[in-house]
């Protein structure tokens, strides 16, 4: 049982929770995720940890209301408890001074990107963050991202904020303008697929953080398997981050629809 300390709407469908989890707060690193279950009949669902406060013993999760399980989670109020939460899971992001790093986050993917942006900046990288969403209201965490970025590019599909265009348009502009040593992308699978395609064209090494269907999150079930470089990998223990150019995104997109 993990107590919800605070709750804030980042947009109409995106909620930020601060949750009591002292052990996880202490041991988590950028890139790690947790598995959350709400209610005795609830499903086990993975969420990437957006940030942690070791002093308060809390972690932050950013949740988009998209289905039954996220609806249940988003219906919880401060003072209420999440039935089960376990983590930190997965491998932490590989952080080093690469040089110039482009962090391309789409929609709610900006939340798990935030700790990576912070860690990359602290490691001495020049960090250019590209945030993308359908429309202005869906751009989240801009202020926090700015804090650790040398430059922030905002892209909206409808041009209501920043520049009009897709995340790939923003990334391509940067690549054409200067040398990029690494691209990190987190967002909807379809977005990561196209970011990967684009950076592949320019030979920019790219890491994607995959969010597949999971049950246990500890390697036990294999529901999360993806094909990377022709081999089957488990996102929960081999990932969640992989060399995006080697990920079979079409297979991943197909498998995400297993229960739709």
């Amino acid at each position, binding site marked *: 049982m993990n107590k919800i300390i605070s709750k804030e709407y980042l947009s109409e469908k995106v909620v930020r929770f601060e949750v009591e989890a002292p*052990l*996880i707060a202490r*041991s988590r690193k950028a890139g790690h995720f947790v598995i959350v*279950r709400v*209610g005795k*009949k*609830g*499903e*086990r669902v993975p969420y990437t940890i957006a940030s942690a406060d070791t002093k308060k013993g809390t972690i932050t999760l950013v949740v988009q209301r998209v289905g*039954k*399980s996220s609806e*249940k989670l988003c219906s919880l109020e401060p003072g209420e408890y999440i*039935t*089960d*939460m*376990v*983590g*930190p*899971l997965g491998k932490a992001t590989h952080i080093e001074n690469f040089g110039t790093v482009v962090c391309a986050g789409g929609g709610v993917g900006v939340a798990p990107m935030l700790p990576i942006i912070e860690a990359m900046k602290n490691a001495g990288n020049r960090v250019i963050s590209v945030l993308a969403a359908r429309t202005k209201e869906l751009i989240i965490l801009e202020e926090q991202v700015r804090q650790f970025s040398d430059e922030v590019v905002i892209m909206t599909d409808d041009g209501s904020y920043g520049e009009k265009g897709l995340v790939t348009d923003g990334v391509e502009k940067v690549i054409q303008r200067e040398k990029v040593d690494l691209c990190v992308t987190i967002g909807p699978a379809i977005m990561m697929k196209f970011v990967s395609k684009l950076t592949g064209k320019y030979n920019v090494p790219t890491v994607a953080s995959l969010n597949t269907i999971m*049950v*246990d999150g*500890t*390697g*036990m*079930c*294999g*529901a999360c*398997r*993806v*094909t990377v470089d022709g*081999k*089957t990998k488990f996102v929960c*223990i081999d990932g969640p981050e992989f060399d995006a150019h080697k990920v079979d995104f079409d*297979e991943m997109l*197909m*498998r995400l*629809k*297993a*229960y739709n």
Partner: protein
Amino acid sequence: MNEYLKAERSVAWREELRKSMKNKDRTAITRVEMPEVDPSIRSHNYDEVNLGLTEEMAVTESHRCLDCVDPTCISGCPVEINIPKFIKNIERGEYLEAAKTLKETSALPAVCGRVCPQERQCENSCFYTQKLNKVPVAIGHLERFAADYERKSGNISIPEIASPNGKKVAVVGSGPAGLAFAGDMAKLGYDVTVFEALHELGGVLRYGIPEFRLPNDIVDVEIDGLSKMGVKFETNIIVGKTISQEDLKKAGFKGIFVGSGAGLPNFMNIPGENLIGIMSCNEYLTRVNLMGAGDPESDTPVYMGKKVAVIGGGNTAMDAVRTARRLGAERAVIVYRRSEAEMPARIEEIKHAKEEGIEFYTLHNPLRYEGDERGRVQKMLLQRMELGEPDQSGRRRPVPIEGATDWMDVDEVIVSVGVSPNPLIPQTFTGLEVTSWGTIVVNNDTMQTADDLIYAGGDIVRGGATVILAMGDGRKAAKSMHEHLSK
């Protein structure tokens, strides 16, 4: 041990029982048959298939046991239950005493009475099997009877606990190895904490074995018994991730037992294996057993195929295929590359599966899968096999028959071709020796790892075995850790 067995055997009531009936009359009794739910009914529900012996049946069966001078059955039991003592207690009507006898050495008697392969262990070492060439005493059925009797009576005995010795020990994983270890250490007066990664306790007893073979409330009662003995349980804690090896040391744990299990499913790496509708047996059984998928109230979905194939011939494959049947499969098929004689599953499971209308495609092996435009599996190509020369395991090797392939229509495939050790502990602990298979190396006599304060047992050491072997490891580890910590 032998002195203890002799002393127990020579108590007055045992002597009297032996005299009360001639061996000739005992061996003339026909072995009891376990009552079962009718296959046409049970293949549509999750109720336990085996109903358990009636009191009358159990007493009659207990008369078959000859209370041998040299009870070879005991050496066939990985946890060395005093088998004649508990059976003779049933014969004299002291069922609660029989249950207490079980608990002297077994932390989970109601579980073992249901899922142990007794036909390969105690019953295979029974005097009837060894010397008389007759069917053995139904030790497993009697074990279950005694454990169930105690549970239903409400007079659940708590084993005697030594006074607390103030030493803390940690257990990683609440499966059969960890529970057996925890029970023995609690009896010895240790302060035991069991850490479980999942949200429920029991490990494979919970997520793996289906309710129709091992009801969850049986597991609950056994775990509750351990809690009453003072064992503490912490769910949602992954040792190595949530808390580290160092954290455990800092928290004052003097010894660690690792029973983290074989939680990594094997796939065959053949074309199309990642199509939708193809999954590991672990995924399938976890969704159904742990998450309650299949119950309309549960948020967790599961595929409910009409044409389901399960690849493999072990107990887990039988569990999966029989679960598929219960979830509405019109056709549920076992596909196994060898013949039925080589199947690792228990004979009882194969029999039950057949009674429930499961088809057996032995000597077949999948080559590839094909799906529809949405990526859902539609059919699989099977290679027909024949048996060649025996391999290293002594079983005849399956060899493909060239050109002999068949297509089978399927809408769900469950891959049950073995599991590998869970990598979390080997990856996050230092000081352990790990094999290329990912199993932890231990001294087979003591279960001690390369780090003398860490012990391990069960599937993380064996790579995929049985509940009772895991429990045997847990007991052995408890005994040697106790000796080590008492120095």
